[in-house]
């Protein structure tokens, strides 16, 4: 502690020479910690959302490029709503729920509003129930179709029970049991921003594809709980109401298919692909995979950036320490005269560099944490958790790089001629 204390005293009382190196180290560590924490939190959030949403499949128009699961319905392209019926009537194994959506731009009191049409389960329950006879046959077959997969509850769109019948359940289940044609659900943020309450009348206007204006007078049936997604800033109405506002007939932008479990989703995707012409069937795992890939790229970039900044830090520390040894020739010579061994002096230089690495690393960690929270907060209220591994690696590597970079300056210091202290410099 005697020598380390001495070094810290020097760094505190004469910070100038160390500051540049310290800043570069801190930048490297902060870049790593921030990027890693955001990437891992984003991955965790995706995983959480995936768990919440179940084994989902998206049916999209063929030429839609998918960027974000929650924005999968904002591409402006459409597929016929009859595809919903086709899926319902096909009674595929593992299809538990369907959620077709049509999202349009509308206006309320001249403010732009994103309006999403959703179809309540009651609308396609009827069609599902028309399949009773064929379901019965399949169920009584030697291997009941609905039981092929562990966890599969049976066939699609059955009776809703419990919370699924609540309007507010839409935010978590993406399924709504019943919704009147003139009912409107409001996203949490939108409701807060405009002070909207259940029972309010809202007059929405839009422009039909033919260019004619369209209007709908709707009543707020409920405010949805916060989801942390774009849904919080949307309004939701019955799909057929939105279709009337849109004026393009019975079309949807996307059909979300909730499979009973992940085991069936890839098989289901193939079946849906052959059932529905001109669509792109994407499993949620693929969506997640795409986002995870983006995260991984970000992750790798952060490591590359970290490596680059660490290399710069190393060079900077080496240069700072060389200059330091030259500047402190008399000091170091005096220490040698007072009984310090060359090893002691060399060790002091390495310790000082390591201290720059440690302090820079900790400062970088702090900056990285703040940056991660600040940046994470801007993106869909991503709840950022710090990646301890990255933090640890960042700080340890910073110390190691600093120690290694100071090896040559330390050797130079150890080889100093102590007689310098006896001469005029």
């Amino acid at each position: 502690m005697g020598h380390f204390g001495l070094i810290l005293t020097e760094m505190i009382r004469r910070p100038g020479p160390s500051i540049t190196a310290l800043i570069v180290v801190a930048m490297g560590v902060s870049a790593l910690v921030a990027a890693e924490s955001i990437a891992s939190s984003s991955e965790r959030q995706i995983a959480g959302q995936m768990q919440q949403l179940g084994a989902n499949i998206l049916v999209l128009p063929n030429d839609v490029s998918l960027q974000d699961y929650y924005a999968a319905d904002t591409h402006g392209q459409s597929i016929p709503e009859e595809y919903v019926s086709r899926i319902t009537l096909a009674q595929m194994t593992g299809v538990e729920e369907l959620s077709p959506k049509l999202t349009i731009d509308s206006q309320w009191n001249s403010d732009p509003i994103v309006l999403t049409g959703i179809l309540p389960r009651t609308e396609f329950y009827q069609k599902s129930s028309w399949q009773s006879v064929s379901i019965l046959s399949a169920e009584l077959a030697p291997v009941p179709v609905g039981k092929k997969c562990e966890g599969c509850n049976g066939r699609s769109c059955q009776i809703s029970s419990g919370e699924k019948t609540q309007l507010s359940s839409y935010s978590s289940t993406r399924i709504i049991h019943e919704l009147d044609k003139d009912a409107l659900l409001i996203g949490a943020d939108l409701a807060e921003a405009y002070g909207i309450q259940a029972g309010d009348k809202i007059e929405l206007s839009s422009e039909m594809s033919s260019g004619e204006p369209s209007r709908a007078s709707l009543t707020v049936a409920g405010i949805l709980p916060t989801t942390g997604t774009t849904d919080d800033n949307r309004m939701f109405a019955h799909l057929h109401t939105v279709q009337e506002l849109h004026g393009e007939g019975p079309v949807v932008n996307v059909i979300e298919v909730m499979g009973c479990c992940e085991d069936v989703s890839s098989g289901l995707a193939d079946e849906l692909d052959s059932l529905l012409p001109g669509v792109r069937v994407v499993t949620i795992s693929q969506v997640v995979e795409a986002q995870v890939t983006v995260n991984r790229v970000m992750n790798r970039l952060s490591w590359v950036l970290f490596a680059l900044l660490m290399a710069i830090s190393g060079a900077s520390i080496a240069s700072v320490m060389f200059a330091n040894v030259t500047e402190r020739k008399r000091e170091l010579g005096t220490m040698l005269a007072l009984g310090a061994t060359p090893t002691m002096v060399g060790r002091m230089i390495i310790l000082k560099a390591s201290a720059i690495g440690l302090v820079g690393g900790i400062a970088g960690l702090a900056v990285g944490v703040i940056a991660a929270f600040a940046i994470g907060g801007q993106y869909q209220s991503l709840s950022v958790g710090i990646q301890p591994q990255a933090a640890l690696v960042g700080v340890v590597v910073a110390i190691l790089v600093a120690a290694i970079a100071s090896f040559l300056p330390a050797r130079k210091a150890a080889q100093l001629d102590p007689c310098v202290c006896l001469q005029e410099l």
Partner: protein
Amino acid sequence: MIQADQVSKSYLRGEDQVHALQTATFGVQPGEFVAVIGPSGSGKSTLLSMLGGMLSPTAGRIVLDGESLYDVSIEKRAALRNHKIGFVFQNFNLIPWLNALENVELPLRLYGHDRKSRRTAATELLERFGLVDRILHRPSELSAGQQQRVALARMLATNPRLILADEPTGNLDSETRDLVVETLSELCNEDRAVVLVTHDDAVSTTASRVLQISDGLVTEQRNQKERPGKNAVA
């Protein structure tokens, strides 16, 4: 206490061999105050460096308390320097970012003395040199005389038996110079030996012995002021 035996130092300057010191043989005993005088570049500092275990001779031996300084390891030599030799420099060589107390503690700190004991020792020494009110001042906040007194206190921190002073009064006013010389003289009376390099006749006259260096050759001039102790000159 310290014995130089046939000590020579030469080095190359370009292609020429320069003899900084030639076969010097002398001893310094406890209680002796030895002044080393000579013109600039005559080898005074070279001699002091070799006596201080910082510059190995080209030939000959230097023995400190029975141990040949340059036949031991670097670590051992550094330890001997710390424990048995005290240096006083012309430029004081205080560490600029340490305060007076920390500067005095430094030799003790290098060898792992605990904080409390080194702090007590350093404070006592600073008190002895009348610097108790300057303990927390950094060298830049002290006068030249105060700095040299801090340097003297630092030199005494490890209670050395041999004191090597390189022009310690060179940068001081006459009052402080007298104080330093007086202090060094007093230290001789504490069973220590002092070897002092100086240009100042007034200082050299206070020494018990005077070694004259000229062109690398060491000769002894007996001073009027006799001090106890043995001497031997080549």
